């Protein structure tokens, strides 16, 4: 957990920006505007935003967009990106076919 837990800190209304339609998460096709809006809807943590929008849950598993998302969220919250906690990492960390997941050597215990 980071310092940013105070959900009441944001009171301003969402203001659209010119580049809100720019794609940030290419794999899941999530735009900058959607990520910014999520912050205004009360999601201050990368893990929450990931669950809400699926950013970083596609083919590259956030390898491309994680830093970009952090930067956008940090800017909206007025904090440094380093203050934001990374999203939880879970296996499989690389995309893997379901058939493969079910085909475990020695069987599933």
């Amino acid at each position, binding site marked *: 957990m980071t310092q940013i837990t105070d959900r009441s800190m944001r009171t301003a209304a969402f203001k659209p920006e010119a*580049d809100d339609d720019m794609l940030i998460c290419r794999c899941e096709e999530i735009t900058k505007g959607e990520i910014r809006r999520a912050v205004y809807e009360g999601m201050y943590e990368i893990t929450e935003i990931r669950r809400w929008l699926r950013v970083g849950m596609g083919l590259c598993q956030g*390898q491309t967009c994680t830093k*970009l998302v952090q930067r956008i969220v940090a800017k909206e919250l007025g904090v440094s990106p380093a203050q934001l906690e990374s999203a939880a990492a879970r296996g499989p960390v690389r995309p893997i076919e379901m058939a493969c997941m079910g085909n475990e050597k020695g069987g599933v215990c």
Partner: protein
Amino acid sequence: MERYDLVIIGAGPAGLSAAIEAARCGMNIAVYDENKRPGGQLFKQIHKFFGSKEHHAKERGFHIGEELLAEADRLGVDVSLDTVVTGLYPGNEVMIKKGGQVSHVRGDTVLLAAGASENMAPFDGWTLPGVIGAGAAQTMMNLHGIRPGSRVLMLGSGNVGLVVSYQLLQAGCEVAAVVDAAPKIGGYGVHAAKLARCGVPFQLSSTIVRAKGGDHVEGAVIGRMDEHGKIIPGSETEIDCDTICIAVGLSPMNQLARMSGCRMEQNPKKGGCVPVCNEYGETSVRGLFAAGDAEGIEEASSAMIEGRIAGIACANRLGFLEDGKAKEAVESNEQALDTLRQGMFAPKNRGKQIEKTDEGFPVSQHLLVTGFLGDDEVEVYPGVTHPKGLHPVIECTQNIPCNPCQDACPHGCIHIGSFITALPAVEASAECIGCGRCVASCSGQAIFLVNEDIGGGYASVTMPYEFMPLPEKGDIGLACSRDGQAIGEAEVLDVKSVKAFDHTNLLTIRVPAELSGKARFYKAAQQ
């Protein structure tokens, strides 16, 4: 569940180096890599590396990769390729996927050496085909022999951006410009100078506003930035290009480390979120080590040494190497690592403004902004002298850890001394025999042999030349200055290609005597 003394994730410079050290101690090792060939990024690196002679300096990256692989092979290290590590669980249990099947192995020690991924820079149109990472450009050119585009705009002036831009030129692409948001060139001055003398312009304090084009890149709009990073209205200019190459830094691969539960930190000097490690590379999870870019972004030479240290530490942990020997081996590697981490570009100096070299010479601000040294500026450095007859001119003006030129000269013309980051000085008393070894040994291509008076009002300039087709003796072309401008006629006097020079050809041109201090590149006349 299969059990190994050491499981290494990633067969790049760090992972292979660790495997070599551990195998020497008799450990039972598994190395996994998701790629189809081992070596990590080394096989894309066709340029000569900096550093000390003892640590592969002046060797081309892919040769270093070949040597590592051969050494690993000799020691019986088995690298499983096409093998994806998909998870790291408590007890250093590693989940791997190979050939449509998953399995679990346990490592008594585990080394994370998965490297890094490229950062991206979002701008309007950044998802258009034709916008590629610098790593992708290298993969296409240097592994598959495919030109990524015809005219490329490079975003990022760090060493990756500079080196890849040069390789693009070598592959026959045009480089429209190197753009960077910072007000100064981020990489080594010698790398920038190689581009500038080929005529590549630098546009600093600038960024890409948008990529133009419907279904692929057909150009770019760049704009100058004010001190707050906002585009200055009216500063936008259009750049004609069909490819935009992004080289804005790397991020450590950290998913497995995060999954393991080891302590992590956000460390901007290490490129992002990395595991907190002790001096042996061990994380807060006992037996779990990290090395190379996965532990903090640096370059391949330090990754190899970090890998060696981690390999030795793992061997010591499991009793394959006694304490005394391990300590000795770690210390000598740490000394080498410390040597590489000196100078103006050392991690500890990142972001600092340095105005004087260690010796007290002014750092060329011109070089940092335009990519080339001013004609007058160059005169102050100890590598630039004007004796009669043939002599080396060394345009190496920043303290970087590199010293092969010192040993290259059989006559002791070049002196660096014991501090590897010191600027090379030309010894007035020594006699240059014109062998050209120093020219070929300089990874920064910053050494020239000059004879300011060869008679008839002419001078000769010998330069490193790594482009195809090679000019031929007798060719008449253009002499270019440090900024790539044609400044006079040049006749090719000699082209020397020696096996020991490893594809750095020595091109000697004859120029009017007054150009001896200015002519630093040659272009064929028809260009």
